[in-house]
Every structure is written in C-alpha cells, then in structure tokens.
C-alpha cells in the first residue's frame, strides 16, 4: 500500500469519526429531553406536598348518590380532614359537627320526595381549602 493511500485512509477515518461524534452529541440532548418529558409527565401526576399528609379528601361512603329509601332518615358516613367543621345541609335540617377523627357519621332526617344534601367541610387549618359534595336521596314511601 502506498504511503499516500494510508494517509488518505487515516484522514477519512478521522473526518468520519469527528462527524460521528458530532452527530452523537447533537442527538443526545434530544434523547435526554424526551426522557425528561416522560419523567416530568410522571412527576406531574398527583403527588402529595408535605403538608398534604394531613389533608383528607372529602369522601362520602354512604349513602350513594340517587339512593331510594323508604325510611325517613339516612345515615351519612364519610371521610374528611380531622378537626374540620362539617356542615350537612338539606331542606329538612342543618347539622354542624366537628370530626375528631377522619371518619364521620351523621343521621340526617329526610322529607318526602327528593332530598338534596350538601356536605361542606371547613378544616380547622385555614390553609386547607374548603370542600363540598352534594348528593340526592329519594325518600319515597310506597
């Protein structure tokens, strides 16, 4: 092999490697950006900030919305942030309680027909936002 050919080969390999390195370096940020997006979308999923550990989302375990009953009262049970002022309101009555535990249970009188009942939760810690839920209970005596 001639000396000139060897030099040409080395130069070719050299240029090729430089371009290859450039291509790899250029594509790497894109790849890492893509993986960042995925990571971000995962990290954007609901996560609990530190003080959120004290917050319980209002949940009504019973009765279910649009329940039909033949009884003139219903037991409302659910979960809410501890030490909240809970106002349960309907056309029949207002009931105000303070829950010392997360779980709460209240007997609510019903009027004949549709009873729209709203459960309002005002946590003791005023930094925790107010929550409410509404449900319909039908007291239909046959």
């Amino acid at each position: 092999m001639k000396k000139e050919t060897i030099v040409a080969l080395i130069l070719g390999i050299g240029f090729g490697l430089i371009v290859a390195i450039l291509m790899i370096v250029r594509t790497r940020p894109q790849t890492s950006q893509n993986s960042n997006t995925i990571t971000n979308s995962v990290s954007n999923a609901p996560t609990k900030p530190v003080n959120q550990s004290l917050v319980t989302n209002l949940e009504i375990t019973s009765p279910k919305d649009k329940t039909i009953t033949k009884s003139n009262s219903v037991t409302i049970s659910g979960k809410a942030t501890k030490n909240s002022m809970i106002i349960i309101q309907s056309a029949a009555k207002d009931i105000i309680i303070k829950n010392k535990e997360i779980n709460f249970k209240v007997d609510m009188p019903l009027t004949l027909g549709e009873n729209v009942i709203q459960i309002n939760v005002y946590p003791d810690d005023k930094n925790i936002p107010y929550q409410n839920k509404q449900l319909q209970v039908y007291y239909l005596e046959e």
Partner: protein
Amino acid sequence: MKKILTITITFLIILSLVYSVVAQTEEATSSAEASPSAKVEVDETVKEFKERVAKLAEAGRSEQQAQSGRVTLIKDNTLTVLTNDNETYKIVVEKDMTMIYSLVNGVKKEKEFGDIVKGDYIIVNGPIMDKTINANSVYIDDQYKLQSGKVTEINKEDYYLNILNSDKENDLVDIETYTKIFLINIKTLESERIGFTKLKVGDTIHIVYKQDNTTDKSEKRYSATRILVIPQEYFLQ
C-alpha cells in the same frame, strides 16, 4: 485524485454506519413509546364496554332507580325531562300501571297523568335503559336547591343580599318574611336564630331555596327559605 476518492469513500462509509445506528435507536424508542398508549386505548375500550355491560345488567336487575328533573315536553303517554345535569330522559307512563303522586308542600296526594304540566319538577322511579325510563311511579315535587357564598352587600331597604357564590358568580338572595336565618356559634358550633340586621358583609352563608318557575326571577336571584351563617370571625381564629 485517488487520495480524495479514498477519503470521501471512507468518510461516507463511517457516516452511513453512524446514521443507521442513530436511526435504529430512534425507531426503537418510538416503537417502545407507542406500545403503552395502544395498551391504554385498549384498556379504555374494555373498561367502557365493561361499564356499559354493568349498567345494562344493573338496569335489568334493579327496578329501584330514580331520576329527577323538569318536564320540558308532554306527548301522548311520554314525558321529556331535563335533569339538573342537563341530561334529557324520556319517561314512558303506562296507563293504569304507573302511579302518579304529588308531594308538593310535603303532602302526598294521588294524581292523574293529566295533572302533570310542562315545567313541573318530577321524580321518576323505574328501570332506566338508554335514557328511557319505564315509570313505575312519578312524583310531582318541589325542587330545593342549595347554594353558598360570601356576603358582599346587604341591602337593608329592599331586604336582599348580594353574594359571591362558590362558582365565583354574583347572586341576589331575597330575604322574605318566611326566611329563617341561623348563626353558628363558633365556640360551641350550635346554631341560633338571628334577624336580618345581624348579618354582616364578609360572612359566609349557606342557603336553602325553593326553585320557583312561576316567578319572573332569573336564576341568579332567588328567595331564601333558610340561611346558615358562618361569621367571618371563624376564619380569623
């Protein structure tokens, strides 16, 4: 000349090798990304299908389902009802089979299909299938609604309150002679009856009112049946 040719050929070979490697990596990444989304799509379809089957099974199994709303149309033996969720239901009333009652003012009275008029608020009990209810019973009822908000203005001449409701909209709440107002004692959480003059701007109130279609009042103005007041001091504790 030979030198340049050799350099160019070597350069192109290396370039094509690198390109193919990079392209394969990208393809592999995109195909790897596509599979979870396709799986999610299939999962959602299966979930929807399962929910639909469960709904149909539930409708067939249980006759004790109820829906309420305002009558928008009466035709032959069917009623069209618009619910609070803005859903439209077709109610099929069978003569001599469907029981019709009035529960207005808390008193139960037997009624006829002809007593139902457009605008009535009704509760329908019966099997629900694809937005059609074969009514076992129909109850004409009063519609009560609940609202809450912060008092922004008190008009002591015309006896009304301006409130910023929970949807951040302004409502006018008329205080009638029959309106009962209760104030929460923030220490004992007992409620005591108070007069209109005890209300203050900044108080949070929970209102019960009867939706009345016979008056010209807009949806943003209503007469309170009962008001429960949380004094602003509660939020300063």
